[in-house]
C-alpha cells in the first residue's frame, strides 16, 4: 500500500503494525506529531494499546521498564533533552535486558537551545547498552522499527533498541511510504513470550536485584556485552529475513556501501545527510572522480570489521560528523580511525564537522569537502557550512 507520510507518522505506523501493547509518552518537539498520531488512533479505536502520558521523560522510561518487565511489547519515542533526562533509566532498561523499542527524533542540545536536528543526543547514549540504528529516510524508519522489535526480542540479544531519525528533515517531511500488510508483519514478528521478564502474582520475581559483589557484577556486565555483540549476527539474519518477506534490502543491516568497490575517496556519513551525500557521489562520478559512500546504519554494536573492509584500500576517507564532543571533535571520527588501525592500507582520514543545529548540507558542500581532503595529506579537521 502506497502512502505519503512524515517520519513521525511512519514511526507511529510501525508501532501500530508491531501491535505495541504499552506506549508511555511525553511530548517534545520534533517528536510531538508522533505521539499525537498514536493518540488520535487510540481515541478513534483504531489502535488497541495501553497509551498514557506521564510527568517527564524519566518517568516515561521508568514506566516503559515496568511495563516491559511484565512481558509486554513496549514502544516509546523522545528527542534531545528528553533523551538526556531518560539517561539514568536507559542503563536500567538495558541492564534488565528489556526489549523496549524507542524512536529518537534527533535534535541539537542546549545551551544555546535549538530545535533543529543534529546527532549529539543520539550519539551521546552509545554507552547505555542499547542497540542503536540510524535511519536515512522515512521508509527506513518504519522498517527499522519493525526489525528492531525482532532483533531486540531475540533470545541471543534481549536488549532495548533505539531507532534514530533526523528531526524536521525526516520527522516533518512527507515522503512516499510502502506500508506492509498487517498479516505479514504479524507472521514476521510473532508474539513476544519472555522467559526472564514477567511479573506474575503467583510466581514472585525480582528483576535487576542488588549485586553487591564485584564478581557477579562483572559477570552480568560481560553477559550484557556479549548480548550486544550477538546483535551483529542477529541483525544480519533479520535483515535477510526482512528482504525475503517485504522485498526491501538493507544489506547486512550494519553498514551500507554505495559505489565503494573501486573508490579512491570514500565519504562516511550517517542519518539523513547520506541521501544528499549519495547525490553528490553521483555528481562527482559524472566528472570521473572515483568517489564512494559508506553509511553507518548500526552505531551500537560497532561493526568494526565491516567498516574496515569497506574503507581499507581507499586513499582518502572523509568522515562527516553532524555532532560535536567539545574538546575532542566529531564522535564518529575516532571510531573510524580505530577501526582502520589493522587495515592493509590505511587511508588518510579527514574530519568534517557539518550540519550543527540543523545547518543544511548541500551537494556543493560535499564537493568542496572532497577538494579540501585531496590536498590534505595529514587529515585535518574542517568545519563546513
Amino acid at each position, binding site marked *: 500500500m502506497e502512502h505519503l507520510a512524515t517520519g513521525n507518522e511512519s514511526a507511529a505506523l510501525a508501532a501500530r503494525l508491531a501491535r505495541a501493547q504499552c506506549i508511555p509518552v511525553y511530548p517534545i518537539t520534533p517528536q510531538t506529531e508522533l505521539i499525537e498520531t498514536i493518540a488520535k488512533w487510540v481515541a478513534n479505536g483504531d489502535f488497541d494499546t495501553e497509551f498514557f502520558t506521564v510527568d517527564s521523560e524519566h518517568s516515561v522510561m521508568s514506566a516503559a521498564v515496568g511495563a516491559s518487565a511484565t512481558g509486554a511489547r513496549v514502544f516509546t519515542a523522545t528527542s534531545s533533552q528528553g533523551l538526556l533526562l531518560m539517561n539514568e533509566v536507559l542503563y536500567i532498561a538495558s541492564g534488565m*535486558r528489556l526489549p523496549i523499542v524507542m524512536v529518537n527524533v534527533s535534535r541539537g542540545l542546549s545551551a544555546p537551545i535549538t530545535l533543529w536536528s543534529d546527532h549529539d543526543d543520539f550519539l551521546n547514549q552509545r554507552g547505555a547498552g542499547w542497540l542503536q540504528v540510524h535511519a536515512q529516510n522515512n521508509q527506513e524508519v518504519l522498517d527499522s522499527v519493525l526489525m528492531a522489535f525482532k532483533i531486540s526480542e531475540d533470545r541471543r540479544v534481549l536488549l532495548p533498541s533505539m531507532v534514530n531519525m533526523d528531526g524536521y528533515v525526516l520527522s516533518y517531511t512527507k515522503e512516499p511510504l510502502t506500508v506492509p500488510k498487517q498479516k505479514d508483519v504479524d507472521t514476521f514478528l510473532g508474539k513476544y513470550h519472555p522467559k526472564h521478564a514477567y511479573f506474575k502474582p503467583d*510466581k514472585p520475581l525480582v528483576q535487576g536485584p542488588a549485586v553487591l559483589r564485584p564478581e557477579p557484577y562483572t559477570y552480568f556486565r560481560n553477559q550484557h556485552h556479549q548480548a550486544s555483540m550477538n546483535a551483529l549476527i542477529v541483525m544480519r539474519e533479520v535483515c535477510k529475513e526482512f528482504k525475503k518477506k517485504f522485498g526491501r534490502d538493507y544489506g547486512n543491516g550494519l553498514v551500507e556501501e554505495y559505489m565503494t568497490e573501486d573508490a579512491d575517496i570514500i565519504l562516511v556519513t550517517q542519518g539523513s545527510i547520506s541521501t544528499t551525500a549519495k547525490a553528490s557521489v553521483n555528481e562527482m562520478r559524472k566528472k570521473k572522480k572515483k568517489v564512494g559512500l559508506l553509511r553507518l546504519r548500526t552505531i551500537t554494536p560497532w561493526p568494526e570489521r565491516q567498516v574496515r573492509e569497506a574503507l581499507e584500500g581507499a586513499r582518502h576517507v572523509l568522515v562527516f560528523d553532524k555532532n560535536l564532543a567539545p574538546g575532542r571533535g566529531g564522535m564518529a571520527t575516532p571510531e573510524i580511525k580505530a577501526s582502520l588501525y589493522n587495515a592493509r592500507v590505511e587511508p588518510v582520514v579527514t574530519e568534517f564537522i557539518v550540519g550543527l543545529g540543523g545547518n543544511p548540507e548541500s551537494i556543493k558542500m560535499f564537493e568542496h569537502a572532497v577538494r579540501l581532503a585531496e590536498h590534505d595529506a595529514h587529515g585535518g579537521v574542517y568545519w563546513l557550512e
Partner: protein
Amino acid sequence: MSKVLKYSYDFEKGVPVMPANASARKNKTGTWRIWKPEINYDKCVKCKICFTLCPHGAISWKGKPVIDYTFCKGCLICADNCPVKAINFEREVK
C-alpha cells in the same frame, strides 16, 4: 594472582533475575519498633486509609483494621493519616 575471565553467553542465567520467595514474610520487622500504634475501635470509622497506606502490609482487614505486631515497625504512617485520630501511639520500652 590475577586470572583471565572467560564467560560463555547464557541467557537463562545471564539476566539479573532471581525468584522472590515472599521474603517480607520471613523478616519479622516487629522487633524494630520503638513507637507502638493502637487502634481505638470506638472512634474508628472504617475508612480503610490505614489499611491502604501501611507500607509493610501489617494492617489486615477483618471487618475492621487489625495490626499485626509481629511485622509493625512503628512508622506511624497510619496514625499520621487517620482522619479521626483513632490511632494512638506510645513509646514502647524494650
